[in-house]
C-alpha cells in the first residue's frame, strides 16, 4: 500500500510519522512521510539520512517557495498511494499518448491555472513524475491550436526574433505564413 522504496526503509509506521520541510522563504510544513515521499527528491533525502534523520529539524528545500509547495503538497496528498505513472505510446503514431486526467486532477489544474509553470518547475526539481507530466500536458494543451501571437500574449513572452530570422522562417516554414 505504501510508497515503495529502494532499500527497504519503507514501513507503514515510518510513513505515518511527520517530517518538517522548510521552504526557501523559511516556512515550515509538517508533512507525513508517506505524503512527502511522492517526491523522489525528498524520498532520496530521507533514505540518505536513514537513521540519522532528525524529523523535527526538518528538510530544507532551497528551490521551492511556500505558496507553490503548498499546492504541490495538495497533489502529493491525493497521489500518495497512486501507482507510478506510465508513459504510454500511441500504437499508431508511436508518440507519447496524452494522459486522461481524473476529475480531481482537472479541478486541481483549473484552480492553479496561473501557476502552471511554477508547478512544472517544482515538480521537475522535486521529481514528482505524475505532477510533472500532467503539468507539461496542461501547458501543451494551452499552446495547442493557438497562433504565435496568442501564445506570446498568454505567457507574456516578448517577440525577440529579428527581421532576418523572421525572413528565414518565412522561407523554411511553409506551415504558417508569417
Amino acid at each position, binding site marked *: 500500500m505504501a510508497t515503495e522504496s529502494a532499500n527497504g526503509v519503507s514501513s507503514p509506521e515510518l510513513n505515518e510519522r511527520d517530517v518538517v520541510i522548510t521552504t526557501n522563504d523559511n516556512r515550515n510544513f509538517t508533512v507525513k512521510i508517506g505524503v512527502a515521499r511522492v517526491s523522489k527528491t525528498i524520498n532520496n533525502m530521507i533514505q540518505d539520512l536513514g537513521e540519522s534523520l532528525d524529523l523535527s529539524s526538518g528538510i530544507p528545500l532551497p528551490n521551492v517557495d511556500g505558496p507553490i509547495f503548498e499546492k504541490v503538497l495538495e497533489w502529493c496528498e491525493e497521489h500518495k498511494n497512486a501507482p507510478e505513472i506510465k508513459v504510454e505510446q500511441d500504437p499508431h503514431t508511436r508518440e507519447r499518448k496524452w494522459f486522461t486526467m481524473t476529475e480531481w486532477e482537472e479541478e486541481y489544474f483549473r484552480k492553479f491555472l496561473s501557476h502552471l509553470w511554477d508547478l*512544472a518547475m517544482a515538480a521537475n526539481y522535486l521529481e514528482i513524475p505524475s505532477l510533472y507530466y500532467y503539468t507539461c500536458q496542461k*501547458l501543451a494543451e494551452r499552446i*495547442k491550436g493557438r497562433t*504565435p501571437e496568442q501564445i*506570446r500574449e498568454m*505567457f*507574456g513572452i516578448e517577440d525577440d526574433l529579428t527581421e532576418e530570422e523572421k525572413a528565414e522562417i518565412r522561407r523554411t*516554414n511553409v*506551415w*504558417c505564413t508569417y
Partner: protein
Amino acid sequence: MKLRSSKTVAINSNETKRELMNNENLTAPSTANVYPVRRSTRQRNVVNYNIEAAISSQMGFQSTAIKGGKRKLVDLNPTEKRMKINGSLPSSSVLAKTNDINSIHVLPDNVMIMIFEKLHIPDRIKIERVCRRWRILSKFSWSRTEYFGYDSINDPSNAVRQYNVGNSQIGDIIRRAGRFLKWVDLSRFRETLSHDVCRYFVNTLQLHTVDLTGIHLTNSALSKLAHYCPNLKSAIFTRCFQNTSMERGLSDFLTIANQLERLDLSENENLRGITSFSKLPFSLKHLNLENCYRLDSKAYSNIHDRCPNLEMLNLHRVYDLVSVEALNSLFKKLINLETLKFGEHFVPTVPNGADLVSLGKLRKLKNLDLHDNNLITDQALIAISRGCPNLEVMDISGCNRGISEDGLRSLGNLPSLKTLNVSCIRNFNDTCLKDICRRGTLKEFKMQRCSQVSNEGVQFTLMNCNALVKLDVSMCSSITDASVQSIYEMLEKRHGKTIPINENDENIFQLSIKNSGITTPFESKNPWLNVYQDSDRFRVPVFINLDRRGGVVRWERIMHVLIHYHNIFDL
C-alpha cells in the same frame, strides 16, 4: 522573490545541461549533429546567434542590475561558457527574461522540450515563431518522432481543422524530423502530393517503411528515393505507376534497396516487369502484385529465380497474360511460401489439360486464398490435399468451373485445416461435407449458398468437429430448424451449465442463418450461441476503381463477373 528566481534559473540551467546530455533519446545537442547536410550554414548561424545572445543577455542583466540594485549578475562557470562557444543548447540563464518572474521562460530547457514533444506536429512547427528561445528549443523536440502519417498532423479530437498538405509541407517536416523517422505513410495525402515529394527525403537514413500509395511517381523520383533511403525494409507503391513506363526507375530502386523485405506493387496496371523484376532483391519476403494484370511471363520467371525466400505472394486478379505453365513453374520453386492469395481469375476458357498441380509443391503453405479462380480444377485440389500438410486457412469459394465432388472430397486429407470457405460451389453436398469433417479439425466453416447440404450433413459436422465455433449456412435452403436443435444439443454437451466469461469469449458458437431454411424467428436460448441474421456481405468483387487517379474501368472485366455470377445470382 527576484533573488529566488535568478538563483533557481542558474541552478536549473546546470541541471538541464546534464539531463539533456544524459537523455539517451536525445543525441548530444551539438549543431553538427542536428543538420549534417547543411552543416556550414547552421554553424555560421549559431555563432552569430551566440554573439547576439551574449550581448543581449549582458545588456539585460546590466539594466536590471541598475534598476533593481540588489540583483547579482549570473556568473557562468567556465564549462558553461565553453559549451556556449561550441554552439550547444543555449542555457536558460542567457535566454530567459530573468526580470520577468511570471514568464514561462523560468522553465528549464528539458521541461520546455517535454512540453513541445507533447504537441502535434503543426503546433510544434508553429511555435518556432513565438520567440528565439522557443525556436531553438523546438528543434530538440523531434527526437521521439519516428512515425509520420495522417494521424500525426490531424488531431482526432479536433476534426474541424484540416491542413492543406502539399509537397513542401511534407518537406518541412522531414527537414526537422527526418533523421529520426522510421515509418512514413503518405497514402492519405495522395490527393495533394506529387512525385516531387521524393526529393525531400534527404536525411532519412533510418527510414525503413514508406507508403506512397496513390502518389504518381516518375522514374527519377523513384531513383532519388532509393538513393536517399538505402535501408528501406518495406515499400508500398500501390497505384504509383499509372501513366508512364516505370521499368528504369523501379530497376534502380530495386538495385539500391537490396535489404527490402516487403514490396507492394498492387494495382499498377501498366507494370510489365520485364527488366525491373530481374533486379528483385534476394531478401524479399512479401510481394504484393494484386491487379498487376499486364505483368509479363518473364517477370514471373524472375520472381522464382530471384526470390526463393518469398513467404507471402499476392496474385489476386493478375490473369491476363499468365499461362498455366508459367504459373506451374513459378509455384514449383517458391517452396518457402506460407501465404498465397490467388483469387478472382475469371479466365473465359481453361486450356485443356492444364492443371495447377504445382500448388501441391508448396509444403509450407498455411494460408491459401483461391476464391473465384477458374483455373482451379479437381486435379489441383487433389495435389493441394496431398502436398500441403500445413494448410490451415483455405478459401475456394466460387471456384465452380473445374471442381466436382472428387476434388472437394480430397480436402478431407488436409491434416491441419482449421478454416474453410466453400461458398457458392454448386457441387458441394453432404458427401463432400462428411469427408472434409472426417478429421474434425475445423474451427470455422462457411458454406453460403450450398443448397445441396442438408440437416444430416450439419449434424455430422457438429458431431465430428469438436472445435467448431463458426458456421455460416446463409442461403442454404435445405438447412432447417432441425440443425439449430442439434446445435443446442451439441452446446449442451460441450459446455453443460457453465456460462461464457464475457461476450467476446472465443468459444461462443457463431451461426449465420440469413435466407436459409431456418424459419422460426428465435432468440438464442443458450448463452453459448450467437445467431446472426445478417451474413457477411455477399461477396461480389469490386472492380471499378473510384480513385481519382486510378480511374481505369475495365468493362470486359465487369462482363466476366456478370457472366460468372449469372447462375448464382437470383436474377
